[in-house]
């Protein structure tokens, strides 16, 4: 595990450091994908890796997402730890069969004989003015696939820490990188997160709990800030890993407040928020003053850039939902 002195870094840079440190620490770690080599990745997350470790450790592949992910499966079967970069969320779909039928199942299929230590990095979410197919949030597909860990950082420190943990994991991890936070900056110590499945309480609050992850975190923190004017003391929980899910931290908070709003960019219908709302309700029902509400993207294909601000959950919609948590009683 590596530690760095706090200096302001972007999330993209923290991810880059995580890859570099992981590659330096373990020669079995290989990075592969289109444009990860000379170019350093479309978001520069693999910058400098090919120069430092050679193009056999950081390899530009032909343009074929199923092919890359499938090849990574074979590499992992041979004992390597491949880290695959997908360029945009929507371009993971061609690799869906490999992900669902093989990546998620290899260990189980072989009764544990063949573990699959494989990380798939997927930039996800909108808010960067991207055109069609560049703003999808498809975490619903991943969380509904048993056998995958689904992880998403919301802070620079977590970007480093969770990615190191993902690469060290002996199971496949879908690592979702919030596109619009790539340039977010923090001065923070970069160190590996010790385990998956621990949500972080980003803000304590007594009147209601906002449950979110990835790109939703800054929005929820802003909503909590804005909510003070309405007299609300809103807590904010950053889930960090959707699978495994931290029932303990989440339920403890919701039991205290009795009110919760789930916030994410992905479409609401059958989105991750559905599971979160359902399981929180199952576990906290007697404590709830109101049903868990969801503030999400609409149930539409991701909109064109000029309209995306209308689609994305914002402070206003979050506070509306909070207001709807039956404050009269």
């Amino acid at each position, binding site marked *: 595990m590596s530690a760095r002195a706090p200096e302001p870094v972007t999330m993209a840079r923290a991810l880059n450091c995580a890859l570099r440190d992981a590659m330096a620490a373990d020669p079995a770690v290989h990075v592969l994908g289109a444009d990860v080599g000379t170019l350093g990745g479309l978001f520069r997350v693999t910058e400098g890796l090919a120069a430092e470790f050679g193009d056999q450790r950081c390899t530009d*592949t032909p*343009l*074929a997402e199923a092919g890359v992910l499938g090849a990574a499966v074979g590499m992992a079967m041979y004992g390597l730890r491949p880290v695959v970069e997908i360029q945009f969320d929507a371009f993971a779909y061609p690799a869906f069969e490999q992900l669902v039928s093989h990546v998620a199942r290899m260990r189980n299929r072989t009764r544990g004989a063949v573990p699959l230590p494989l990380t798939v990095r997927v930039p996800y979410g909108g808010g960067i003015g991207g055109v*069609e197919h560049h703003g999808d949030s498809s975490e619903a597909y991943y969380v509904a696939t048993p056998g995958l860990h689904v992880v998403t950082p919301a802070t620079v420190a977590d970007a480093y820490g969770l990615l190191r943990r993902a690469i060290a994991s002996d199971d496949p991890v879908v690592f979702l990188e919030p596109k619009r936070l790539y340039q977010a900056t923090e001065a923070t110590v970069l160190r590996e997160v010790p385990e998956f499945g621990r949500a972080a309480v980003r803000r304590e609050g007594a009147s209601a709990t906002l449950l979110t992850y990835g790109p939703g975190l800054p929005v929820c923190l802003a909503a909590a800030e804005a909510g003070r004017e309405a007299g609300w003391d809103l807590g904010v929980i950053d889930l960090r890993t959707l699978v495994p899910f931290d029932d303990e931290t989440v339920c403890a908070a919701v039991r205290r407040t009795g009110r919760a709003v789930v916030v994410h960019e992905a479409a609401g219908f059958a989105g991750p928020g559905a599971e979160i709302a359902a399981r929180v309700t199952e576990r906290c029902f007697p404590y709830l003053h109101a049903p868990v509400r969801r503030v999400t993207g609409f149930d*539409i294909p991701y909109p*064109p850039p*000029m309209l995306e601000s209308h689609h994305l959950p914002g402070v206003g919609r979050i506070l509306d939902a909070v207001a709807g948590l039956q404050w009269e009683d």
Partner: protein
Amino acid sequence: MTVDQAAALSPLPDAEPFGLLDGAPDTSLWPLLYRHLVRGRRFNEQATALTRQGRLAVYPSSAGQEACQVAAALALGPRDWLFPSYRDTLAAVTRGVEPVAALGLLRGDWHSGYDPRAHRVAPLCTPLATHLPHAVGLAHAARLRGDDDVAVLALTGDGSTSEGDFHEALNFAAVWHVPAVFLVQNNGFAVSVPVARQTAAPTLAHKAVGYGMPGRRVDGNDAPAVHRVLTEALDRARAGGGPTLVEAVTYRLEPHTNTDDATRYRSAQEVDAWRQRDPVTRLASALARHGLLTDGLRRQAEEEAERLAAGMRAALGTDPPLDPGELFAHVYAEPTPHLRQQARAYRGRTA
């Protein structure tokens, strides 16, 4: 032909890309091609300029590839369909789509700015090679309907040939013997990845062999040659001769898009060498060699180009009208009750 009749092997593509400019050809089409090339170059320059002014979200320029773009559009018959990729706005514009409509995707007010049926131009397609099966299906449907004046031309890039959908589409096309032509614009790169890391085949045209269809290679910076090869392939397709794979050898002179930094992965020398083979100046020189580059032609070409650019500036210089309510309008023929509820809630918030 059955697999066991293996004696009848299909021929390999020619080793040398087909060219016309340097021979002693029929020049009747050249002035028209020239005007469109000049206009096409201007289109690329103006669109790139509009990205700098924030008027387009992004623009993947086809500068250097205008011969392919223009020839592809002009080779089409009136009832033919064009299936462009995200880099092929110029082909759509040359086919007759309004520039502001063709650029709708890249401007970002909606995903596709035009009605595909009006000009028989499918929506610009971003996920690589995924439009190729659509092209095959549409060509198949036309044949099923007995519309034998319909052929389909699908444009794609060298990088996209590695995708599974490329393979599935070409195989379907050959098995179904549909009237479809696949033009691979081999512009040397898929973003930063050179074609040598994309395939080990001698040429991309060789991929045709594995599908049992003819593969042809053409100089992609020689507009008359591209036009000829595509016209022949489309004629053959309409006549029931089945599909063709055409590889056009060309070069992307600009970065992948305006946000790309191409100096990271290729040298100025390489780009300069290709500038020497610029499709616009090459046709101009050839016209001049044949005494056809008159002042009149030059002026006409330039005027048309400037008119186009001015139109683009005017149409794209202002913000488009936006109606967020439209977000809910086209998901289904009738919005579901659930979507109607979301639309109502949205309107409630913003009212």
